[in-house]
């Protein structure tokens, strides 16, 4: 299963010059051109990725986007999985191709999470991601449940605010080298710790960005790529090596004491994806990873739950820079959700765009991971109610 083409728009705080369909059109066109196609007609089906009818102001957007990207007449399905939406769309394309239903699938996702809605409206809509009946009455911002998780992680393992602030610094610094990033910044741990409090211990700079943006990827069988993609033979092919997905209790307080500070679904999704990809020693075998840094501490927890470091050592790993530019695994070279930004339906696809470009050796030298051969993406919904892990590899 190959990734024949990838494309994305820049992620920004607000596009005053483009609707969500314009951005998806740009991303999809870029992915098709990247594959060397002169027309979308050889593509068998589309998968549309977007989370929110509220943010996008358009129901049945899947068909609208399918029409926008030139796939009218072909089957399309809309995929939604909260923060994991984009990655789940890639996984859905993979399943369609594995089943034999399609030989090529264009995955396209976008969201207008930026300033097209005012802050109060954005918080109101986002609060619907929590359990409307049992959680939304008591908290609005997702900083709260993430804060509860990391508080228990700190108590149990001695994790500190300074350790996860290092991740907030790292990802914003990485984004400085990504021209498509929403907001790269050069800040310090002190800047993070003195930013506005959200939900203790989290502060503003521990949180990620809300962006406008779109991304697309064209997945295909090798024989389809040989037949239709003129660029296929010109560069190192990148394949999807594995994919995994799992769920957890959506409400944090329903989870067991043992797993309270951990992402159980992430562990299961990663185990499945790694098994398919033949990975038994993740930190040694994976060169580059795009990890879901909705909050700085969530990336720290993900290091452990993705098997990149032992459980309880995420804080120490962050402090040592084990997942920084020169680290054992380079995590979030794009800048992650904190620096590149997050337009939910596009996010998991944009992660794949970064990983595929890294594996091809096509990103700007400043952020290229030298000789990268295996990369992965990690996203989750809510505070880990659904996780999707996709593993990519250079196969030539």
């Amino acid at each position: 299963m190959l990734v024949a083409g990838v494309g994305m728009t820049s992620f920004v705080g607000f596009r005053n010059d483009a609707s969500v369909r314009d951005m998806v059109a740009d991303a999809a066109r870029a992915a098709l051109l990247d594959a060397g196609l002169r027309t979308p007609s050889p593509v068998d089906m589309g998968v549309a990725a977007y989370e929110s009818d509220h943010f996008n102001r358009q129901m049945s957007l899947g068909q609208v986007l399918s029409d926008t990207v030139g796939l009218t007449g072909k089957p399309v399905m809309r995929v939604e999985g909260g923060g994991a939406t984009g990655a789940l769309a890639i996984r859905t394309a993979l399943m369609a191709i594995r089943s034999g239903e399609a030989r090529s699938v264009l995955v396209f996702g976008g969201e207008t999470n930026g300033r097209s809605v005012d802050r109060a409206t954005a918080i109101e809509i986002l609060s619907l991601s929590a359990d409307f009946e049992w959680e939304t009455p008591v908290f609005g911002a997702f900083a709260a449940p993430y804060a509860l998780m990391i508080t228990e992680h700190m108590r149990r393992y001695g994790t500190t605010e300074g350790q996860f602030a290092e991740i907030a610094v790292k990802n914003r610094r990485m984004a400085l080298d990504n021209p498509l990033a929403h907001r790269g910044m050069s800040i310090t741990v002190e800047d993070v710790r003195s930013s506005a409090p959200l939900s203790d211990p989290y502060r503003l700079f521990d949180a990620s960005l809300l962006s406008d943006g779109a991304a697309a990827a064209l997945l295909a069988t090798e024989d389809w790529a040989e037949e239709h993609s003129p660029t296929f033979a010109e560069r190192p092919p990148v394949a999807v090596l594995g994919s995994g997905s799992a769920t957890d209790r959506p409400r944090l307080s329903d989870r067991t004491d043992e797993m309270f500070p951990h992402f159980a679904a992430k562990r299961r999704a990663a185990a499945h994806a790694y098994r398919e990809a033949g990975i038994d020693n993740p930190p040694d075998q994976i060169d580059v990873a795009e990890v879901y840094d909705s909050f700085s501490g969530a990336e720290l927890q993900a290091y452990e739950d993705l098997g990149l470091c032992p459980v309880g050592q995420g804080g120490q790993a962050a402090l040592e820079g084990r997942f920084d530019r020169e680290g054992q695994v380079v995590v979030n070279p794009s800048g992650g959700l904190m620096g590149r930004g997050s337009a939910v339906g596009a996010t998991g696809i944009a992660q794949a765009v970064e990983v595929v470009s890294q594996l091809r050796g096509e990103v700007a030298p400043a952020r290229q991971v030298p000789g990268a051969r295996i990369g992965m993406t990690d996203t989750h919904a809510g505070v880990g109610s659904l996780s999707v892990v996709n593993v990519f590899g250079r196969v030539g």
Partner: protein
Amino acid sequence: MRITGTERDADPDGRPVYLLGVEIAQRYRHAVGSSSPFYEGLEQGVLRATRCTGCGASWFPPRRFCEEHLTETDWYDLPGTGTVTAATRVHSPPPFGGIDPPYILASIRLDGVRGGITHRVIGTETPQHGAAVTVKFIDEAPAHPLLAFAFAIEGATP
């Protein structure tokens, strides 16, 4: 729905672009459905949970059927005590209002049931892991029915 205005702006290259101000208000009648006995309990000053009539497994928040045995559950009253797993000071109000920030939010393991609740703790002190708490019915006209109650740290000065 209504258009509140049409705005002419410029894109990054200086070309004119147009934006529409849009207002959409949505109103619902939300059925709490199978949780209705819990809401009835709130009127009587008690928290309720469900349990399997076969194996006795229990759940809070309530479940319609036992996820092990597919048997329908029935309702019972909880003692209203519990233990804090983790707590945080939240600096923004909840969506329905009713609590002035900053306020204390905790994940609480409830006694007498397998399960817990994320809810408000009364006062300004952030309780530690393991702190004992008790439900208090504090508001007769809450902004949301679930805010009729909150939890008090045992031994804390009221």
